[in-house]
């Protein structure tokens, strides 16, 4: 088992559009859990989520756990205003021997699989997030977003609880399935119209979630 000493957790929190605002707002739950478990969070917010700042922070603070929030592609994780901050073939070695959670589209496919991280949890295709226009100023209370966000952040929450990445991945997958089953098999507080959007998002995101690296990796 590969155990990492866990002084620092880095969280990128861009907020230039709704997707990044939601992901960054919800990430506070991960930060709270980390602090309760003796992990020091380092937060990079808004315009500061640029390549130079991220690279410098990783090199200076040497975080064992990094949570990336933002957009992405097969070989890239982006920061503020879609600026690429981690690019496979350019600076992916910054992820080496760390536990990574990438809440981004597609970066699991090439970057996550080949970056040399101790473990990488992310998505190998597009990630879909549904939301209500009238709730966008209250991301934590957005009825459409809650199921999708709760499932997605379960994995980094478990890592912050010092669970292994395999346990974290499984818990997240279980949560996806629990929501899908609950909404599919029984009546719920959601309307049929809402479920026409939520359920396909949940099923798609569940299928695209990937784990690479040492399944037993965890923060010590």
């Amino acid at each position, binding site marked *: 088992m590969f155990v990492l000493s866990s002084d620092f957790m880095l969280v990128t929190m861009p907020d230039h*559009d709704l*997707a990044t605002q939601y992901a960054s707002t919800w990430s506070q739950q991960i930060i709270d859990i980390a602090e309760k478990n003796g992990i020091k969070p380092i937060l990079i917010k808004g315009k500061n989520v640029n390549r130079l700042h991220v690279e410098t922070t990783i090199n200076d603070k040497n975080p064992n756990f990094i949570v990336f929030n933002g957009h*992405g592609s097969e070989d890239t994780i982006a920061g503020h205003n879609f600026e690429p901050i981690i690019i496979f073939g350019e600076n992916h070695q910054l992820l080496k021997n760390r536990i990574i959670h990438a809440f981004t589209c597609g970066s699991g496919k090439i970057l996550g699989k080949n970056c040399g991280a101790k473990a990488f949890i992310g998505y190998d295709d*597009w990630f879909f997030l*549904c939301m209500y226009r009238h709730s966008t100023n209250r991301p934590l209370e957005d009825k459409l977003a809650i199921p999708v966000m709760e499932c997605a952040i379960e994995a980094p929450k478990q890592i912050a609880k010092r669970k292994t990445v395999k346990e974290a991945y499984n818990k997240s997958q279980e949560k996806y399935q629990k929501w899908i089953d609950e909404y599919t098999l029984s009546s719920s507080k959601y309307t*049929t119209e809402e479920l026409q959007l939520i359920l396909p*998002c949940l099923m798609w995101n569940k299928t695209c979630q990937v784990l690479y690296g040492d399944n037993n990796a965890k923060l010590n």
Partner: protein
Amino acid sequence: MYTEDEIELVVARLRTIPDNAILSIGHMQDKSQFNKDELIEHVKQMDDIGKKIIDMQLKYVRSFK
């Protein structure tokens, strides 16, 4: 790649979602959030976004087979 029936099915499903719903996509593009009418338009145009929305909806529908 998709049959006309499949596209019609996805459009029909999208027409039923709430009018004030937004779908956000985490992929790196100039525009990352779409309302109901925009989603339907992308599906009809069969561009990259439309194809991915079709894939997402069909994956769910096919899960019942």
